[in-house]
């Protein structure tokens, strides 16, 4: 009876295997089909940026097939990359983003170290508070910050509004909480024996941090750096509110406000500017994709 049952199970299982692999092949084909559709949806705007950036104004206003370049030209790129104004935006964006990354790291690494390793009064509350701060959006704070900067400027006489360097103090509010949060996760995952050994060997807290924690948690550090850089590079609301003069603008605001002159939209140049503005994050992403994705998922999975 039992052998009969086993005999029966044999062939039917074989058939099932065959259909499963066929199913899988079909599933793969369908997956590719839908992925191509979604890839078209996801990649249309950046590709269209590139197409338009290679067109001359004459070709754009001639309203030929918008998806094809008939007379490719680099004149938009040449014009923007030789324009002092655009280079100024690029320079402002770069200096702001780089300095903000440095400030962010200087604040969040020591703080994350203390919160991950030194239990002190209120450390758990502070860690939670850091996470909550990350959830406070920029659109809630821009009005009070604008007013605060105005008040401080009136009191001290230091120009704060309409100066790019004020962004150096404002952007860390966006980057520090998240960077601290993911660095806490990375530091907490380092085995305790490692820093205990360092302490026994007579290392100070600072040495433990610089000799043990930073090298071991380097992937997390890179992820946090990428995050801080891309956030500061992309930030739009704060510079739009706090800076107005053309020479103080950063790239996103500069492109949206100066390249659109009245009702005349020079789309070739706007798309070129947007593409050049998107280039630094895209290049970083292309080379450090794994770190980028690690940073992205760390917020929810490292908690």
């Amino acid at each position: 009876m039992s052998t009969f049952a086993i005999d029966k199970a044999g062939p039917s299982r074989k058939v099932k295997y065959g259909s499963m692999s066929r199913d899988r092949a079909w599933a793969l084909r369908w997956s590719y089909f839908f992925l191509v559709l979604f890839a078209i949806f996801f990649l249309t705007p950046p590709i269209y940026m590139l197409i338009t950036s290679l067109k001359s104004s004459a070709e754009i206003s001639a309203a030929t097939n918008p998806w094809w370049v008939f007379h490719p030209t680099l004149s938009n790129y040449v014009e923007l990359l030789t324009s002092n104004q655009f280079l100024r935006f690029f320079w402002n964006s770069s200096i702001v983003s780089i300095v903000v990354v440095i400030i962010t790291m200087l604040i969040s690494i020591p703080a994350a170290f203390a919160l991950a390793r030194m239990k002190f009064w209120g450390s758990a509350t502070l860690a939670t508070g850091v996470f909550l701060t990350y959830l406070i959006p920029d659109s809630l704070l821009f009005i009070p910050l604008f007013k605060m900067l105005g008040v401080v400027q009136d009191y001290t006489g230091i120009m704060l509004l309409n100066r790019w360097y004020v962004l150096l103090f404002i952007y860390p509010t966006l980057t520090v909480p998240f960077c601290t949060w993911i660095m806490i996760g990375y530091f907490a995952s380092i085995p305790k024996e490692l820093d205990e050994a360092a302490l026994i060997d007579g290392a100070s807290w600072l040495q433990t941090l610089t000799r043990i924690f930073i090298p071991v948690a380097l992937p997390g550090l890179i992820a946090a750096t990428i995050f801080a850089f891309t956030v500061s590079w992309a930030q739009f609301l704060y510079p739009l509110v706090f800076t107005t003069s053309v020479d103080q603008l950063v790239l996103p605001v500069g492109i949206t406000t100066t390249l659109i002159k009245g009702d005349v939209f020079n789309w070739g140049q706007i798309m070129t500017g947007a593409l050049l503005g998107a280039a630094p994050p895209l290049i970083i992403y292309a080379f450090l994709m794994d770190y980028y994705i690690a940073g992205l998922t760390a917020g929810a999975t490292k908690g």
Partner: protein
Amino acid sequence: MADVVVERGRIARATGARKGSSLRNVLGRKSTVAFLLTLPLILLIGLLVLYPAFFSLYLATLNKAMTKFVGLSNFTFLFKRETFWMVVKQSCIFAITAVIFKALIGFIVAHFVHNIPGKKQRKWRGMLLVPWVIPPAMSTLAWLWLFDPSYSAFNYTLSFFGVGPIPWLGETFWARFSIILVNVWYGAPFFLIMYLAALKSVPDQLYEAAAIDGANWWQKIWYVTLPMMRNIIAITTLFSLIVTFANFDIVRILTSGGPLDTTHLFATWAFQVGIQSSDIPLGACVSLFMVPILAVAAIFILRDVTKRGNEA
């Protein structure tokens, strides 16, 4: 004898420390070091996040010239304005619809990417995340150009199918549609990546067990995938709800709130009222209306995150 020596040494050290400057003593203590290390963080959050948040509460109770305390009359003034209720409605429509579509698309595409084997998967994942990497202000410009009233590339393509020119940003319905579309385009890759990471963490044995029990693909998703991913789905959705609700860039660049203020969100309307019309108290008041929904979402996120922490 040896014991005594050790004992004496300890006493000597203890008295030496007591004699030494008390400042160094305090500095050497662990809690002091920890406090000093976190001090910049505390200052930053206190001065540039918490203080402005409460300052905004105070600002909301002033009159337009910010000379007089007017209590809650800014709030009652808003309640009487039709535009305000439209903004509330539009913000909710926008945030809820966009988050649902982002989550759905992210979930579906994550499954497709998950099906792809090995090295190719990396390439697809890399390609599909591009919208999230481009700064939203830049990519929205591309969308603005795609939606252009006279040169719209979409309308050009649609005209071949006999579909008439669509006023992408000119009519209320289409403008709302376009804004949601752009937001879904920008945010879906984030869901995709999160869900993909979650899918990878579901053990294969569970699917094998389900297959042996005779589960079909739908039952596998419903009884295996979804329960295993529940936490990630909850956190990602709530987080995205906050970000979407507070969105500024997309609406500002695409429509600036038009046509006739029908696409304004809290953030863009607060900007228009508070900065462009320089009625700072009213603007602060408008943006404060985001707080309740943000607070609710934040509480739920925090609950999930601490739950995860306890599980681990």
